[in-house]
C-alpha cells in the first residue's frame, strides 16, 4: 500500500511539473483525475444500490426458497454479515485486483464468463458507431449543401421521428420488415455460438448493427448539417468561393474541417448512447453481449454480475467523456494558441 502511495505521489509531482510547462497537458491531467474521482463515486452508488439498500440482496437472490441456512450461506458469499464499510472495501479491493466475485446463478467467476461478452458488445458498439456516423455524416453534408431543398426537409422530419422512438421499436420494425413477416432475408436472432466470434456470421450482425446505427444517426446528422450551414455562412467561405473554388471543394476541404470539434463531441455522445442502447438491442436479437447479460442478471438477481456490468458500462462512459474532451481540446484553435 505504501509503495502505491509513493508511486502516486511521484506521479502527481511529475504531473505538476508538466502542468507548469504545458497548460494543455495540465487540463488533460485534471480531466483524468476528475474522471477517476467520478468512477470512485460511481462505484459507491453501484454498491449502495445493490448491497446496502434495506431490501437485503440475499433475500432478493433466494426469493421464495429462502431457508435460514441458505440465507446465511448467500450472506457469507456476498459478505453481507460484515459491516457495510468492510463490505465495500472487500468488494472494491477485489475489483482493483481483477477479482469481481462469482456469479450467484452459475457459480463461475464473473470475469471468466462475462469477459468474452465485453468483446462481443465492443464489436457491436464500434461497428454501429462507425457505420452510423459515416452514413449520417454524409446525409448531413447533403442536407446542408441543398439547404431547404426537399431532401433537407424530409431528412429533418425523419430524424425527428427516429430520435423519439425507443430502440426496441426500431428493432422490432426491422425484424418485421427483413426477417419474419415481409421479407425473409436476415436472421431474427443473432446468437454467437460458444467458440466463435461475432464477425464469423456477418449476416447475423446486420440487424442489430442497423438498429443501433439508425438510432444514433439523427444526432450526428443534425450536428453536421447545423455546423456546415453555420460555417458556409462565414466570410472565408465566401472568399474561397469568390476565388473560383467549386462549391463541393469548399464544402469538403474548407468548411468540413472547421466543424470537427463539435462533431467529435457528438460522436462521443453517440458512443455513450450506444452503451445504454445495447441493453435492449442485444436482448431483442439474443446477442450474447453485456446488455443481454445485464437483463439476465437482473432477472436472476445475480448481484456480482450486475455490479460488474454496470461498472464496465459506467467506466466506458467516463473514458469516452475524457477522450472526447481531450480531443476537442486539441482541435480547438482557441486552446491551441495557449500552448
Amino acid at each position: 500500500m505504501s509503495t502505491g502511495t509513493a508511486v502516486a505521489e511521484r506521479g502527481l509531482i511529475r504531473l505538476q511539473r508538466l502542468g507548469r510547462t504545458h497548460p494543455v497537458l495540465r487540463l488533460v491531467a485534471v480531466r483524468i483525475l476528475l474522471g477517476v474521482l467520478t468512477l470512485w463515486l460511481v462505484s459507491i452508488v453501484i454498491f449502495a444500490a445493490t448491497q446496502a439498500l434495506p431490501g437485503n440482496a440475499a433475500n432478493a437472490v433466494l426469493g421464495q426458497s429462502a431457508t435460514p441456512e441458505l440465507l446465511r450461506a448467500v450472506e457469507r458469499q456476498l459478505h453481507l454479515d460484515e459491516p457495510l464499510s468492510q463490505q465495500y472495501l472487500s468488494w472494491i479491493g477485489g475489483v482493483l485486483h481483477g477479482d469481481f466475485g462469482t456469479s450467484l446463478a452459475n457459480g463461475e467467476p464473473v470475469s471468466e464468463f462475462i469477459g468474452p461478452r465485453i468483446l462481443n458488445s465492443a464489436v457491436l458498439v464500434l461497428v454501429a458507431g462507425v457505420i452510423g456516423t459515416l452514413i449520417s455524416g454524409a446525409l448531413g453534408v447533403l442536407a446542408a449543401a441543398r439547404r431547404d431543398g426537399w431532401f433537407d426537409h424530409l431528412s429533418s422530419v425523419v430524424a425527428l421521428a427516429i430520435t423519439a422512438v425507443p430502440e426496441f421499436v426500431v428493432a422490432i420494425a426491422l425484424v418485421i420488415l427483413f426477417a419474419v413477416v415481409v421479407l425473409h432475408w436476415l436472421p431474427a436472432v443473432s446468437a454467437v455460438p460458444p467458440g466463435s466470434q461475432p464477425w464469423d456470421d456477418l449476416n447475423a450482425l446486420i440487424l442489430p448493427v442497423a438498429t443501433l446505427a439508425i438510432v444514433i444517426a439523427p444526432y450526428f446528422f443534425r450536428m453536421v448539417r447545423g455546423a456546415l450551414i453555420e460555417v458556409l455562412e462565414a466570410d472565408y467561405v465566401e472568399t474561397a468561393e469568390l476565388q473560383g473554388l467549386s462549391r463541393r471543394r469548399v464544402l469538403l476541404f474548407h468548411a468540413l474541417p472547421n466543424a470537427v470539434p463539435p462533431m467529435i463531441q457528438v460522436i462521443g455522445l453517440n458512443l455513450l448512447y450506444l452503451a445504454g442502447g445495447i441493453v435492449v438491442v442485444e436482448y431483442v436479437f439474443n446477442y450474447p453481449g453485456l446488455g443481454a447479460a445485464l437483463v439476465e442478471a437482473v432477472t436472476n438477481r445475480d448481484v456480482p454480475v450486475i455490479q460488474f456490468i454496470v461498472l464496465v458500462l459506467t467506466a466506458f462512459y467516463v473514458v469516452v467523456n475524457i477522450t472526447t474532451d481531450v480531443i476537442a481540446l486539441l482541435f480547438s484553435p482557441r486552446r491551441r494558441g495557449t500552448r
Partner: protein
Amino acid sequence: MSGRRQGLAVLVAAARTQRGAVGLVIVAAVVLLAVAGPLVVPHPPTESVTGTFAEPSSAFPLGGDNIGRDVLSRVLAGGWLLLVMAAAATAIGVGGGVILGIAAAYRGRLTDGLLMRAVDVLLAFPQLVFALLLVSVLGSHGWLIVLAVGISHAPQVARVVRATALEICERDFVRSVELMGTPARRVMTGEVLPNVTSVVTVELGLRFTWSILIIASLSFLGLGIQPPEANWGLMINENRIGLVSNPWAVVVPTALIAIITIGLNTFTDAIARASLGVERPAEEAALAAGTPLELAS
C-alpha cells in the same frame, strides 16, 4: 412578461405552429385512446377468450395473443398505466432537476460544486441501466420504476436549468431584490424560477417522451409492469414469437408507442423553437445550454 405566463405563452405559440399542432393532435389522440380504452374493452383483457395467436376475425378484430387473449382489448387497456407512470416520473425528474439547478446556480461556490459533481456521477449511468440497477434488488414495483426514472432525469434537467439560471442570477433585478434583504429562498422561487419557465416547459416535453421510452423499454424487458396486466411494451415481447401467425399483436402496440413518442417529440420540438424565438430544434437548444444529448435507455 410574468414568468408563469412565459411558459404558457411558449406552449400556445408552439401549438399555433404547423409542426406543434400536428404533434399535439397526435398526442391527444393516443392519450384519448389510452384513457378511454379501458372503458370500452370488448373482452376481459386478462382472460383467454380465443386461440393462441388466432388470426383476426369479426369477434376479435386484432386476433389473439400468446395465450389466446383478445389483442384489441389488451391494446385498449394497456396504455393508461404507462402514461400515468411516465407523467409521474416526469414530474419527479423535472421538479427535482429544477430545484437542484436553481439552487446550484444561485448558491454558487461549494453548493454548486458539490451538486454538479453529484450530477456528473449520476450522468455516468445510462438511464435504463440506472433503472435496472434499482429494480435488480428491490424488485419491479410500479412506484420504484417511477422513482428510478425520475431520479435518472433529474441530473440532466438540473444542468439545463442551472445554465439558464446562472445568467438570470447575474441580472440587476435579482441583485436589487437581494439588496432589499429578501431571503434566499424567496429570491429563488419568486425571481429566478419564473424566468426559467420556458426552459422548464421544453424539459417537461423532452422528459415525458424519454419517460415513456424508458418505462416501455423496461416493460419490454419484462422488468416493468408485471403480467398478466396488459401493457404495450410487455405485449410486444410476449407476442414476438407469434409474429408469423398474428403480427397484429406486435405491430399495433409497437405502432402506438412509436406514434405517441413521435407526436410528443414533434410538439416538444415546436416548444423549443417557440421558446428560443428562432428556428432551432430541441437538441441544438440543449447543446447550446451545455447539456449532452439524451443519454437515455
